[in-house]
Each structure stands twice: as structure tokens, then as C-alpha cells.
């Protein structure tokens, strides 16, 4: 019988707010519960949603009242989350605290407090950060603080892993790459029965058939809307029988609208405005090509969704995007206007020449990305940090080397079976290395946190905290347990 864990997912970002991190947490939690674990979610209170909620599949969500400052990230008060966090953790008998998203203050605080309380912690990074601007420097320092004492880190792509390792000075072996996934059932290509007036091309696309290019993205600078604005007139000029559908909103939409008016393209570019995530598929299946001009992207779930809908993907070669899809589904472009136009031209030519088997994409994507797979791989991380897998197997090196007495300070902080020890002095050692000033500051924070923990143990003793009954756990299917 595989060990099962009580897992708390902590993030500022969760439903009812839509978004990629939110759906990631939800899908992962659901699949982990299917595998017999107990999962709760701790997030901050959204408007009209405070307290404890059960989602339909028994997923329990704690909406903790907290001051929200910017784009639903909470105000960073290092310690004020501790009392209620401790209460929740003890009530739910949590073993593993799993934080998400590096901009979420909740996640960082929870990891710090969980380590103080002697819990295993995992962090999932969903985004890429540079190293140059002031905001990044601050975020990176905070991330270094939190990740100085985390058991394992999960990144959504190899690029993201490199970035996180550099940002937080981590051992690359304690960073796993587990991609996002898509629910392939929600992104099926159009079936003939669904809409008879719009049959999928049973016959090859002729040179005069209309090819529709879909763009779904928030219209921000980061998403490459400037490139899009520059490229659309040229693409439409070069290829007469094409049109665009653009969904999404943002500050750059005014540029797009101006471009449309300037070039009189109202009949060839359709702007849908903001759409809900459920409607994404319905928009996607109206097109043949998905254009993704983003300038930075950790994973790019939307291009997987587009490929799953049977669209040929044209995307810029930035961030983690080149890792996501096989080359027969994508045309890569440099983030330059000229190259984007040529790449789109190549994609249109390939579609017209009928070289791309887009009808097969859905099944292929389905085998590549699934949340079950993500849950299995995440479970392996949990096993590794909790000691269910031996250190040698998990970290890919053997203990003999470690015990060889080479005085490697890197592994000296590791305690039993490859997981980091909870002793305060070991933790302080790890935090101290964060920087000349920051290291001392962080140590101070950790000590205060520890004192707070002792105080809470005295003032609100563990015995006085009710243990809540669990939602009935699902049976683990034996066959799904593969390593």
C-alpha cells in the first residue's frame, strides 16, 4: 500500500478568480485526491467567499480573511498568518505543505511556518523572472528566503527550472520539472455532429479557402501584442484568404483597434473582447492556426490547448515554449515582426498544401499531457521528501558518496534520507547564506517565527484544537501506481 499524505495547497490564487495557477491547483488537487491523498486548499478570502468551502468532489477550501493589496496578492506580513495557519494545519493533520506561485505571499509565509512546525514543504514555480529590474530583484530575494529551507521545488518547464535554480541558488537536484497539463476532454476539435454548418476540412484546403488565425491572450506588452499589431496587416496583405479572430482584453487592445481602423480590416479581423476560460475551446475550433506572439512564457498552456483543439500553432521561441510541443505541431518564429510574418506564411502554406495532419493532434496531445500523469509525478516528489523513496533513488546519487566524509557542506544540512533537517540551527545555517544583510535579517525572522511557534504551543495547546473528520478517501487503484 502506497503511503498517502495529508496535503495543504497554499496559494493566493484560487477560484473564484480564473487563471492558470488556479486551475493548476484545482486539477492537481483533484487528481491527488483520486489517488487516495487528502488535499485541502488554503487561500485568501475573495469577495463573498470567506470561511470553509467544500467543492463538489470533496475538496476543502479555506478562505482566510486577509488584506489583499495587488492583483489578489496579499499584504506581506511575515508572521500574522501563523496562528490561523497553525490551527488549520493541526485540525487537518497536514503532512505536506505545497505552495504555488512565487508572487503569492501566502505561499511563502506558509512554507516558512510549515518548516517551523516541522512539516515537509514543496514549492511550485509557475513563472519566469528576469534578474535586471527592481521588482525582480525584490521577488528573487524573497524567493531565496523562502526556498532556502524548502524540501523540494517543482517547476513547469526546464527553462523555468534553470531560472528558479539561479534565482534561489538551489541545488538543481532538488528541483523537479513537472509540466502543466490540459484536460483534453475540454479541448476537443469540432466534431461534425456539433456544427454541421462548419464542417472540418474533409477535403484538402484549397488555395482559396478561408484560413482563420486565432489569437487568445491577454493583450499586454508581455504577451507580444505589439508584435501582433505590427504583423497582422502584413500577414493579411500577403495572404488574401485569411482572417483573424482575437480574443482577450488588456491595455494594448486599443492599439489593435487602431491598427484595424487604420488599415480598414474590420471585415478580416474580429475582436471578441474578454472571454471566459470555458469559451476558449469554442473560439479555438473556429480557426485553423493558433498564433501565440508572447515575449515570455514559462509553459504556455494555451498552445497545448490549441494543439489539442487541432490547430496548427505558430509561436515565438521564447521561455519554455520550445519544450512544450513537438515540431510537427508548431512553427517557431523569432520574436521579430518579419520572422513572425514569415512563420505564419509557412504555416498557411503548409496547411494549404495539406502537409499537416491537424486532425491527429488531439489524440497526440492527450497522450502527452494529462493531469493524472502530473499527479503521479507529484506524488513521487512527496514520497521522496517524506522518505518513502530512499535518498539515493530520489536524488539520483548514493548515500555512500555522501557519507564519504568529503565535508560537502551542501549535503551536511540534510538529515535522514535526503530530506532537510528541522533543527533550528540547521535552518539558520541555510538562511544565513542568503546574503550579507539579508541573511541576518532572514535569520532574525526565522527566530521570531520560532518563538512565535513556542508561544502558540503554550497559549493554544495542540490538545485544545479539534481534529476535523476527513472526507471519505477514495480507493487507490492498484494499476495506476507505477513509479
Amino acid at each position, binding site marked *: 500500500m502506497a503511503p498517502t499524505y495529508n496535503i495543504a495547497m497554499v496559494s493566493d490564487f484560487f477560484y473564484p478568480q480564473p487563471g492558470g495557477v488556479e486551475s493548476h491547483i484545482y486539477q492537481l488537487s483533484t487528481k491527488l485526491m483520486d489517488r487516495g491523498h487528502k488535499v485541502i486548499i488554503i487561500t485568501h478570502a475573495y469577495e463573498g467567499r470567506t470561511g470553509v468551502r467544500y467543492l463538489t468532489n470533496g475538496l476543502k477550501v479555506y478562505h482566510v480573511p486577509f488584506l489583499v493589496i495587488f492583483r489578489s496578492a496579499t499584504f506581506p506580513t511575515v508572521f500574522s498568518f501563523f496562528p490561523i495557519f497553525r490551527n488549520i494545519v493541526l485540525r487537518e493533520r497536514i503532512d505536506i505543505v505545497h505552495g504555488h506561485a512565487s508572487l503569492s505571499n501566502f505561499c511563502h509565509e506558509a512554507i516558512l511556518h510549515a518548516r517551523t512546525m516541522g512539516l515537509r514543504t514543496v514549492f511550485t514555480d509557475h513563472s519566469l523572472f528576469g534578474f535586471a529590474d527592481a521588482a525582480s530583484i525584490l521577488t528573487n530575494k524573497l524567493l531565496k528566503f523562502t526556498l532556502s529551507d524548502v524540501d523540494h521545488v517543482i517547476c513547469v518547464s526546464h527553462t523555468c527550472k534553470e531560472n528558479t535554480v539561479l534565482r534561489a541558488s538551489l541545488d538543481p*537536484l532538488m528541483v523537479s520539472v513537472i509540466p502543466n497539463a490540459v484536460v483534453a476532454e475540454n479541448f476537443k476539435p469540432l466534431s461534425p455532429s456539433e456544427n454541421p454548418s462548419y464542417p472540418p476540412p474533409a477535403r484538402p484546403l484549397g488555395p482559396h479557402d478561408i484560413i482563420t488565425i486565432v489569437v487568445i491572450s491577454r493583450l499586454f506588452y508581455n504577451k507580444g501584442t505589439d*508584435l501582433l499589431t*505590427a504583423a497582422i496587416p502584413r500577414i493579411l496583405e500577403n495572404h488574401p484568404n485569411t482572417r483573424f479572430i482575437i480574443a482577450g482584453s488588456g491595455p494594448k487592445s486599443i492599439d489593435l483597434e487602431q491598427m484595424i481602423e487604420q488599415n480598414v480590416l474590420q471585415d478580416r479581423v474580429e475582436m471578441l473582447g474578454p472571454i471566459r476560460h470555458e469559451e476558449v475551446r469554442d473560439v479555438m475550433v473556429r480557426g485553423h492556426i493558433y498564433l501565440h506572439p508572447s515575449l*515570455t512564457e514559462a509553459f504556455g498552456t494555451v498552445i497545448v490547448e490549441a494543439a489539442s483543439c487541432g490547430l496548427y500553432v505558430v509561436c515565438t521561441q521564447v521561455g519554455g515554449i520550445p*519544450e512544450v510541443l513537438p515540431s510537427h505541431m508548431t512553427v517557431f518564429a523569432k520574436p521579430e515582426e518579419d520572422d513572425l510574418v514569415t512563420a505564419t506564411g509557412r504555416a498557411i502554406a503548409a496547411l494549404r498544401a495539406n502537409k499537416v495532419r491537424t486532425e491527429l493532434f488531439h489524440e497526440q496531445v492527450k497522450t502527452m499531457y494529462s493531469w493524472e500523469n502530473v499527479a503521479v509525478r507529484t506524488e513521487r516528489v512527496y514520497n521522496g521528501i517524506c522518505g518513502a523513496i530512499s535518498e539515493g533513488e530520489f536524488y539520483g546519487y548514493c548515500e555512500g*558518496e555522501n557519507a564519504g566524509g*568529503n565535508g560537502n557542506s551542501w549535503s551536511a544540512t540534510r538529515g535522514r534520507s535526503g530530506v532537510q533537517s528541522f533543527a533550528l540551527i540547521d535552518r539558520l545555517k541555510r538562511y544565513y547564506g542568503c546574503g550579507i544583510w539579508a541573511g541576518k535579517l532572514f535569520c532574525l525572522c526565522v527566530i521570531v517565527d520560532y518563538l512565535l511557534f513556542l508561544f502558540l504551543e503554550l497559549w493554544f495547546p495542540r490538545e485544545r484544537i479539534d481534529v476535523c473528520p476527513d472526507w471519505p478517501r477514495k480507493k487507490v487503484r492498484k494499476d495506476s501506481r507505477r513509479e
Partner: protein
Amino acid sequence: MAPPSGLHQSAISSGFEKPFPALVRSSTVPASLKSHRADPSHLAPEDAYTPISPPRQPGIFDTGADTRPRHIRRNDTSRSRSRRRKRFQKLLWVKQSYPDNYTDQATFLENLQRNPRVQPYDFWPLVADSTVILQHVCSVIIFIVCFVGIFQERVSPVSVVGWGSFATFLGWLLWDWWMTQEDQTSAGESGDMTRSMRDGRIYREYRPPRRQDSTSGPSLHQPLAHNISTASISSTSNLPSAASSTTNLLQYQHRPHPTPHQHADSNSQNPAPPKLLTPGHSHSRSVSSVHSVTSQNSANSPTSTSTRGPIHDSAPDSLPNTRAYLRVSTIKSAILIYFTLLGLSPILKSLTRSTSSDSIWAMSFWLLAINIFFFDYSGGTPSHISGPHKTKKMPVASLSTNAALMASTVLASRLPSTGQVFSLTLFSIEVFGLFPVFRSYARHKSWRYHVLLTVLLVLGAGGGVGIILGEPSATTWPWKRGLAGMVIGCLISAVAIGGCSWWLIGMQKYKNEIYGPWDPARPIIISRRHWDDD
């Protein structure tokens, strides 16, 4: 930033297997932590089962499982071998036969770039560049010295403003002479190598290179004369003056001329206006459009002259008229400013009567500090050091001039008589408004002028400080103190310039810029629309 173009191809196309050493912790931790492999003469524990082999050339060895890292799992070697058949790929859609936290040494951080665009400084160019700052600091010091002199009634305010105005007039004459000379030079021998330095600079930076020959050809002699004069005028209007209202003395001259934008519009009817890839800078655009006219043919010259202003639109060779007109308008605006100040002086005199002097000293100190720190040292026009990418004007340059003028206003309000107030304010306009324009122009004109000006300023500032530090004595002129001040000023400025340059060069070794595929790509957009550049 280099786009991460190689990422995908390298992962896909390099079908051959690169030999990479066994995955051990020591090989994946950062380099500083590889402590236990530091001494190659000692055996490490993994030496027992991993033969240390030099890296082999790709393609000459077998691709079987034996070359796979076979080291790590002694317990389940067979399982490991069967699983690690395929090479690690940096892809997410492939079912890898490696654990998720596997770190491949051949590809991990392969796209990391460190300091890709750093260019090391050289000592002497750095010292030469820092003289600009020295000049400005010295002129601020001279202003303070003059104020103290007036305040302590050592110097007659009339003499200060008289000499200052005289120097300004001389500077203006010099500037005017340069301009005329330059116009003639560029009009007369435009194709020659004897083109003045400033012209050469404009041509080099603002014109698409391929048009150079056609423009400077002798057949285009006549229209070129007009257009060059327009170009030079519109470029001078972008001198650092720009900042505030007081500098309209110079800008006044250009008011009858069309703004750069009008130029661009009026020239857009030409069949093939060149696309210049300098977004968001109207100055460069105006010059480029002027060149576009030049490069068309002489038939376009009436178009361009007609846009130039109401005064001289009909004259075919309006060069002398232009200059005369500019001179008249300059004198007009100078007189205007003079009398405005004269009228304002009684008001300024009692402006801060209710404020204590201490507050005024502190306030003027901070204002002058703001002036020094936010001054536009780039010189407005691109110098030979800063490239064409740095031509963007500092957005806070006007803050600098305004702070200086406010400082002079509050300082002037400490003075007891109207004449003193008027003198100091006029002097401050000359020092903070007009002098920087002249300085930057002199720097572009000739290096020798620049050095000469710097030396004069340092001597003046040092001597002035030396003089006002001593007790006022009515009998003798304290030339000894002045001389000592000059010497000390020279020493201090030399040490400061040299020391700061040396320090900056020394700090370069701490530079550690990291670039990689995670950085947001910089899009290259060619056909910028109108609304993008402002």
C-alpha cells in the same frame, strides 16, 4: 537579448550523443560547491565505479547503454540500464526515462549568457567624459561664489552681471560665428572630408548609410544648402537648453520654423520616404526627413522651403537672411528677458522675507544638489561616446534647470537691494540657462575648446572659493588666497576625476548580468505606426 533560438533545434537535431559525466551531486551543484573534487590527485568515492575518462568526441563511440551514467544506482543497475536508454531531451512532451529532478549537464543552463553586452571602460576616455560633470559642478560653484560675494558686499553686483553678460555676449558671438561657418562649410564643401566635426556626426548617425553618396554628390548642391541649414537648426533646438522657460533665448530663434513633426508631414508626400529605425525620437525623424528630401532631387526643394516659415519662404537662397533673422530675434528675446527681470526684481526681493535664512540656505543647497544630479550631461545631442541609442532626452532634465532657477530665486530674495536681486537672477539665467548650451556646443565643436573651458572653470571656481573663504579685507586684493584656491581646486578636481574613474573601472569586476531564455524577449518591430512614436 539573443532569442533562445538554439534551444529547440539543439534539443532535436543533435542526434548524436554527447558524453556527459555521471550524474553525481558534485557535478550538478554550483561550481563553488564542488569542494570534494577540488583535488584531482585524490580519489573520490565515485572513482571506484566510474572511470574518469576525458570527454570524447561525439559520434565515435557506441550509443549503447554502457555509456549511460551507470554509476548511481548500484543496487538496481539492471533496472537503471533498461530505463535509461534514450538520451535526455530538454522537452516536456516526450516521455523521459529520467526522473523529474534529473539535471542533464550537457544541456542544463546551456543558454545562460553572462555579461553579454558589457563593454569595458578605458581610463582616459572615462576621465575625458567626466569633465562634463566637472564643468557643471564648477559653474555651480562659481555661481555660489558670486552670490556670497554679492551677499557679503565684496563684489559689486553690477560688475558680476556686467562681466557675466559680456561673457555671454562673447559666447553668443562665438556660437553665431560657429553656426555661420558651419553652414557655409556644409553648403560649400559638403562632399569633402573637411566637413566640420559636428556635421560629420549628424551625417554618420542619422542617415541610412546607403544614401550617403547620393546626398553628398555635387549635383545636389543647391537644395542641400537649404536642407542642411534646416537640419542644423532643428538639431540645435534639441540642445539641452530645452529644459525651461529661461532658455527660450535660443529656442526663440527657431519658433518660426516648423516643428520636426511638420517637417515629417510635409515631406511624407515624397514617393519613397526612408524608414528610419529610430522610434520615438522626433529629432532624428526630422533630420531623416530632411535628408529624404535631399536624396530625392532638386525639384522638391520648393516644397521644403515653403514649410520653413513665413519670413523667408520665397527667397531661393535665404541663408544670410536666416542668420540675420535669428540674430534679431535673439536680441529681441534678450531684451524682453532683461526687462521682465527688471520688473520682477522688487517682487523677488521681498519674496521670502518671512522665512529665516537657515531654511533658505538648506533649501538652496538641496535645489542645487538636484540641479547637479539631474542635469542632462549627455549634452542633448548625442556625443561621440554615447551611441545613437542614448539620444533619448532625460525626462528630468527640465527638473534640473528649474531647481537651479528656484535656488537662485530664493537666494536672490535674501539680498537687500533691487539691483542686487536683478543682478543675481540675470546671472543665474546666464549660468544655468545659457551656459550649458554653450558648453555642450563647445564640446561638440572642438575638444580643445572643451579642455580650455574646463580648465578655466576649475581655476575660476577654485580661486573664487579660496577668495571668499578668507576674511574680507578692504585694502588688498587677496590674490594669494585665490592662487592657493586655484591650486587646491585643480588638485581636488584631478583627484576626484581620476579617482572616480579608477573606482568605476575597479567596480566593473562585480558586474554580473545574467541573460537567458527566461528573460522577456525584446520584440523587433519594423513598421511602427504613427501612434507608437510620440
